[in-house]
């Protein structure tokens, strides 16, 4: 049900949005805007998270119990919703990282073979 509704845009690879968000939150609680900035900066502007996909995804993960949310004050004292990784989310992150590594390795070996 989730995939169809989340509709990640091409900017971020299909299925990797959750991984990126979870990984970002591993460093500590953050609001949605902070998450986009972080991903953009760390990937040297290669990966761009579309706002239109980010928020549905965040709420979806919250409902799945991977992350929890809380209202707090942002750096410049604005009311913002901070997301935080839960125990379940940590497990999920480990799982997704493993999957991603497997996938990346698989893609790499295909590329090597083609050469």
């Amino acid at each position: 049900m989730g995939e169809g509704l989340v509709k990640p845009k091409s900017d971020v690879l299909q299925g990797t949005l959750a991984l990126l968000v979870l990984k970002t939150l591993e460093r500590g609680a953050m609001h949605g805007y902070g998450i986009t900035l972080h991903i953009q900066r760390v990937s040297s502007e290669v990966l761009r998270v579309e706002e239109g996909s980010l928020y549905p995804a965040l709420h979806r993960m919250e409902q799945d119990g991977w992350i929890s949310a809380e209202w707090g004050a942002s750096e410049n004292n604005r009311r913002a919703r901070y997301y935080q990784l839960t125990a379940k989310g940590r497990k999920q992150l480990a799982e997704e990282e493993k999957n991603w590594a497997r996938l990346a390795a698989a893609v790499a070996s295909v590329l090597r073979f083609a050469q």
Partner: protein
Amino acid sequence: MSLLSRLAGLLKIHRLERDVEDELRAHIEMRAQDNLAAGMSPEEARYDAQRRFGNSTLVKEDTRAMDIVGWIETTGQNLRYAARMLRRTPGFTLVAILTLALGIGANVAIFTVVHAVLLEPLPFPHPEELVRVYDDLRTSNTHDVEMSVPELWDLRDKSGVFQDICATLPADANITGGDHPERVEALITNANYFTMLGVHAELGRTYVPADALPGFSEPVVISDAYWRRAFGADPKVLGTKIRLDGDLYTVAGVMPPGFRHPGRTLGADVDLWVTGGFAAVPFPMPVSRAIRYFPVMGRLKPGLSVAQAQTQLDNFVAQLTRQFPDEYPAAAGWLIRLVPAQEDIVGNVRTELFVLFAAVGFVLLIACVNLANLLLARSASRQREMAIRLAIGAGRARLIVQLLTESVLLGTISGAAALATVFSLKNSLLRLAPANLPRLNEVALSPSILIFAFFISILTGLLFGLAPALQTARADQTTALREGSRGAGSSKHRLRFCRFLVASEIALSLMLLIGAGLLFRSFWQLLEVRPGFDPHHVTTAKIWLALPNDPKNDPYLTIEKRAAFHQEILRRIAALPGVEQAAIGSPSSAPMDSKSTRSPFRIEGRASDLERIPVAEVASVTPGYFCVLKTPLIAGRFFTDEDNAKGQQVILIDETLAHRYWSNADSDAIGQRLQLGAAFEGPNLAAASTFTIVGVVGNIKSDGFDAASAPHIYRAVYQSPPYGAVVYLRTTADPGLLGEAVRSEVQHVDPTIPVFDVRTMDFIVSAFLAERRFALELLGIFAAVALLLASIGIYGVMTYTFSRRTNEIGIRIAMGAQRSDILRLAVGEGALVVAVGVVAGLAGSAVMTRFLQSMLFDVKATDPLTYGAIAGLLTAVTLLACLVPAHRATRVDPLTALRHE
């Protein structure tokens, strides 16, 4: 997606929606600020931030949808889990659903009636403006008198309170011209009746202003039921001529099926409406303030409350009293009283319905308590499951929600089952209700009933599920896991809670039982009342002599003609096979079957009492009346056939009247003279005249067992022959066959006269008691169910207690305790719970039964006998319920018991 957002709207997730908006706005603002810092112009910064969101509404919707999807999924999981748990314990589930469905069903059924009778406004536009207008003559203690024509005109033209006001006079009418004469229920009103109510004809028209004539006018409007009955629902009925009491009328309209006259009628629903102005022959002329003969309904001016209108009317009445001192002597204490139309129709049924509603509420509460107990006992065995789930990281809140989902699911299933049962049995259930319960025809499945059923089901689920859910989820993990092997939990606290529940259950049942007990005592007292007549083996039937508009067409205009008719009828029916004795009386002579008609009187030679105008119920009867009813003669003589128009004007009085004025001896009354006020007999206004008392008879409780005995004055039928008559036959023959025989005899004398309402007096008396019996039976059933549930409850708890203490009991027995000691210990524990419950119940009853007061007869709401007896009964039953498990506990084999640990 739109479906989801609609669902969101349905679930009123407003807060959620605002949260999402806030969150997105915060994002946009932060981006705009950064853009600004990066050197964009303010507009550009803002625009860019917005643009990145694309279609922001869509994003908002997507985001919100995620929240709802999550909620739905969690609930779905909970529901699936709950359904699985319920399926796993089919026995428990079945018992729970049956208990709850019984409780919810009773509530839905009573609510349906309460809704139709009390809550649903009358089916007219602005029903709150409709009122019934009564005259009160306070000093003669005569309330709810009808009104007179000049009073109606005053109210209409000068009071300034009413938009519309209208006389509504129920009347018997004979339809002739068909195969056989038929009696119909007619309602004579002013021409503004239908406009006042705001209703229109289904077919044809109602009255138009041109129909407002001083006398009767030709168009009549018929009811849907009569249209079907008499005309086979013929659409071409309009314009049909019908002969009503000898006069020709034209059917102008047919009312819609749902329309009913919002007021009292003679017998059943109104068959046809006739319009008249009450100001020309054949109405009593000349119009007089003292001749009050029709009920009045009005529609208040918009925005005027009943209380405000009443204040204005009080001033108006004071003004009229000054203006007409002769008509309204201070002694009469004349007042005009407004009663909201709905209240007037419903009458005293209100209290009864609320009492029943409270009773079913109690039953449901008891059912909930019982189930809570069951769940608590079960929670012991589930504590382990819960402890494990807590240990592996489930949130407590989530567990509670899940357990509540289970009980709410049970509640909803039971509610659905109850609703289905109630409405599939609707017609048979309604047959249980007394026929005179008003507005029963309006009982139907409506949205508000569905909503009520839905909410009460949910509430029930929460009510019985909350305590066990909290209890189960508070499980102390380590003890639960350790203790778990036997499926037991931390029992001390739970046990105390169980006992509290059982005690409250006993208290609730006691209150219900005492209520039922008080009603039963009242009913018993009522049956002890001697009505003053013997209703067994008496059959009655009614006849109505037509009353044509033109007296010249009236074959029974003179007293002699009418007297001759009654004499001939009496001669014929007395000779019918199986008839031992027969009599004829005016409609008001029928005990418990007529609205009392009270007339003022004065005893000659006594100073008229300025404080009070005495009134008595006046009826005319033939000589055999008292013999047929087996009412004794106390002094003097009964009427004879010689007491006719040629003879001296004579009357009989009853003991109540005799005692009031001749307190030494009843026989002192004989030969005294008495004046009766002017009376309206058919079209003729009989002037006030003087009568000689020739006899004193026993009291007849004509207004019912529970009414105070009003004084009665009897006139001789042959001196005052009525147009409407009741025939009394003392017989053992079948009333159905007898009815036919009477009909053929009457129609042999005059083929245009119908015979109707053939009934035995036993039936009339039992119909009179029907309302009380209905309330008594229902409350009795509810109380019995409550008693049963409470007994099951205490039995369950005691069984559970002793199973928990098998080990302890084993040790006691091993240490040398006697079985009788164990039994005493066991019963002692139960007795404590019972005692607490009974004391609380007695206290509750003392408070609650005050609301029953108006339904009681000759019994105080705090009747010690009832309280004592019921408390004793309940104590005995509940103690018995704990004796069984206690007895079982004493038979424990110490060895098994010790190994039990």
